[in-house]
């Protein structure tokens, strides 16, 4: 494509973008699509076709191709830009009308579609413009070496050495600087302490104390006959209902299991056993109970713990047993904690 046609294309496009010309051009192109051979779109094309018919010169063919290319490109680009602008207008319309009438999350769909078409069609138009209406040629250049030329490097070295040589008491400066830097690191290290209270004793706290009632989330205490065998409840110590670390799962072991494991469940008061409900693997609540196998399961990484075997892990990535809460039955028939958990509840850590 020659420079002449290029600039003509640019001028044409300027008109397309800024005037009503756009519609006329688009309409003309659509019409030309159906009848381009018989009714050439422009005077040049007509002349070229005449030339071609009479002389069939190569120059005329090229001219036709160029003009058609330009027209096609203009049509495509105009179409996409027009779609984009229409989508932008519809975005505004949806936004303002919806906001005036009633904003609803359901407006997300039309709003998002019109926003997407606005950007997407404009982007497509831009890329088509680059493909059809901009000159593209492969450029080639020599690369420079990534390293500086040796002379420049030496000049820099010299500048540094000359400056350094002028400094007196260099060792003093270096020593003081190093000392201050080390101190600064220590100071920053200290200030980190402001970001958190000391982890201990909060981390190793076993939450329960002897004699505390087992309260459900609604605050009601648990008595010996509250749970049916084979069912579970989430319980908390008084004053800590809903607290993450305090959550405890209370299981009333099914009758069948009591017969199967007499030596184990002797330790259980009336078939009740209780464990920390915080998984020892990554801290999710161990919220599922499988009655037939008497396994507690954590839904996050599917670790399982055997209720009949002191909460030992039986599968999945957990490696420590669930901390156990020993129970006893008070004179009034309520279940009480016999002490704290057998270990700090929650995922493991270095000092555990």
């Amino acid at each position, binding site marked *: 494509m020659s420079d002449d046609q290029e600039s003509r294309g640019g001028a044409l496009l300027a008109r397309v973008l800024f005037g009503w010309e756009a519609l006329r051009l688009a309409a003309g192109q659509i019409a030309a699509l159906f009848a381009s051979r018989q009714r050439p779109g422009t005077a040049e094309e007509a002349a070229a076709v005449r030339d071609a018919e009479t002389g069939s010169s190569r120059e005329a063919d090229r001219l036709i191709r160029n003009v058609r290319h330009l027209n096609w490109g203009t049509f495509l680009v105009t179409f996409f830009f027009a779609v984009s602008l229409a989508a932008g207008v519809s975005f505004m319309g949806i*936004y303002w009308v919806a906001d005036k009438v009633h904003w609803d999350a359901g407006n997300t769909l039309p709003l998002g579609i019109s926003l997407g078409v606005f950007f997407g069609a404009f982007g497509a138009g831009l890329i088509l413009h680059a493909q059809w209406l901009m000159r593209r040629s492969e450029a080639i250049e020599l690369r420079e070496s*990534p390293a500086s030329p040796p002379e420049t490097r030496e000049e820099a070295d010299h500048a540094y050495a000359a400056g350094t040589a002028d400094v007196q008491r260099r060792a003093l400066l270096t020593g003081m600087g190093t000392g201050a830097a080390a101190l600064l690191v220590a100071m920053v290290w200290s200030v980190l302490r402001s970001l958190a209270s000391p982890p201990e004793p909060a981390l190793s706290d076993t939450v329960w104390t002897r004699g505390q009632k087992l309260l459900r989330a609604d605050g009601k205490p648990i008595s010996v006959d509250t749970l049916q065998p084979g069912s579970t409840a989430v319980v908390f110590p008084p004053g800590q209902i809903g607290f993450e670390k305090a959550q405890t799962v209370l299981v009333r072991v099914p009758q069948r299991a009591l017969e199967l494991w007499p030596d184990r469940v002797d330790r259980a008061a009336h078939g009740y056993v209780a464990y920390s409900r915080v998984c020892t693997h990554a801290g999710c609540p161990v919220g599922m109970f499988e009655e037939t196998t008497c396994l507690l399961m954590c*839904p996050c990484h599917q670790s399982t713990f055997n209720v009949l075997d002191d909460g030992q892990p039986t599968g999945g990535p957990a490696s420590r047993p669930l901390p156990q809460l020993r129970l006893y039955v008070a004179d009034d028939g309520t279940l009480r904690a016999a002490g704290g958990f057998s270990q700090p509840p929650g995922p493991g850590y270095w000092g555990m």
Partner: protein
Amino acid sequence: MIVRGLARWLDRRVRLAKFTRHALNHIFPDHWSFMLGEIALYSFVILVLTGTFLAMFFNASSAKEIYNGPYLGLDGVTMSAAYKSVLHISFEVPAGLLVRQMHHWAALIFLGAIVAHLARIFFTGAYRRPREINWVIGLTLFLLAITNGYLGYSIVGDLLSGTGLRIGYAILLSVPVIGKWLAYIALGGNIPADPTIPRLYGLHIFVVPALIAGLLALHLAIIWRQLHTNYPGPRRTNRTIVGSRLWPSYTARSIGLFLILFGVIAGLAALVQIDPIWAYGPYDPTAVLPGAQPDWYLGWIEGAMRLFPGVNLHLGPYLVPGLFFSGLLFPVLVFGGLYLYPFIEQFITVDEQDHNVLRMPWERPFATALGCSALMMMLVLLVAAGDDVVALALGASLQSIRILLRILFFAAPAATFLVIHWLCARRKRREHERARADEERSRAQVRTASSG
């Protein structure tokens, strides 16, 4: 005219013409795979734009409040102020849900583009000297992007987000010696603690994005100075750069790509629901959420945590929980390997050359096979991250699926390595044979020409 006038005005003051001329003539190679990094860059721009809008409404506070907004499903429920403000964004702010979904989609695409870009750089050997610095910066950007994605969905305060935060806390806690302090300093105490959300919010909207922006600028400045690599082809040598000039075609195409990406993200946000936080409810440390998975780019760590056997390491009176190995040491080793790879390769192959022409993947059977087997390992872990869902769908027991995945964790990468190595080596051999045959033929032609 306006542009020229402004350019003159600026040039009178800060001498820009020379730079402008260089910039407009800067050559970019034309290959689709060079767009992957661009997509990552533009996703980041979209993240900043949408994130700024969301920050106008988000309330980074753990304070307990009662919800009484238009979403009746949670009417009267006590929740964190943060979660309440995200419900407000989703149901009451005009275009709020759209922008929120765009933000989340853009994050997923950001990470996807980074991974694809990383793979392209690896498989074509673009990390080789002199571009090792950009390899290191790029990996750091990848880490920062993962971190910020995690921080982003952790501050929302829904049940899924709180569960993820709980697991992150457990991973920090598991670090030997300093774990307790690390977890407390990062999250402000035994979570859910009051300082957690404000602290993570500050990191999410300022510290990490600032680091990403700074390193991104450096990443681009370095490649601008070094120039891109070229795929092998005619006239492409170590001393030349071949491609399109920045102005005007490349500029138009690149901005076009940005706009199309923006359009695709807006379209996804409109059509495909993502992270419906209202359905999960507020974070309650005692509530159970089965079938929970993190965003896809953390799936490999989640998978590692699930597949790792239940073992502890006891060092005298001290404990190193198994979670430390799967949740922290494994990702550190993966990234450590990635960071060091160019330097190890350079050391082993005694390679001190600058490389400006890329190699096709089949030209380097070992590196390609290694990269593919690493990707296969990640794929197995990604499946493992949803192994409960897989077991349910296949009607198999979770235990058997997990054993199968443990075997696959070792077997699939090994098999991938062998197969890919064989395929690449075969292709390489055939290309050599073809080249030799071509040479033979041209020599024969020369002979007949000279004898005749």
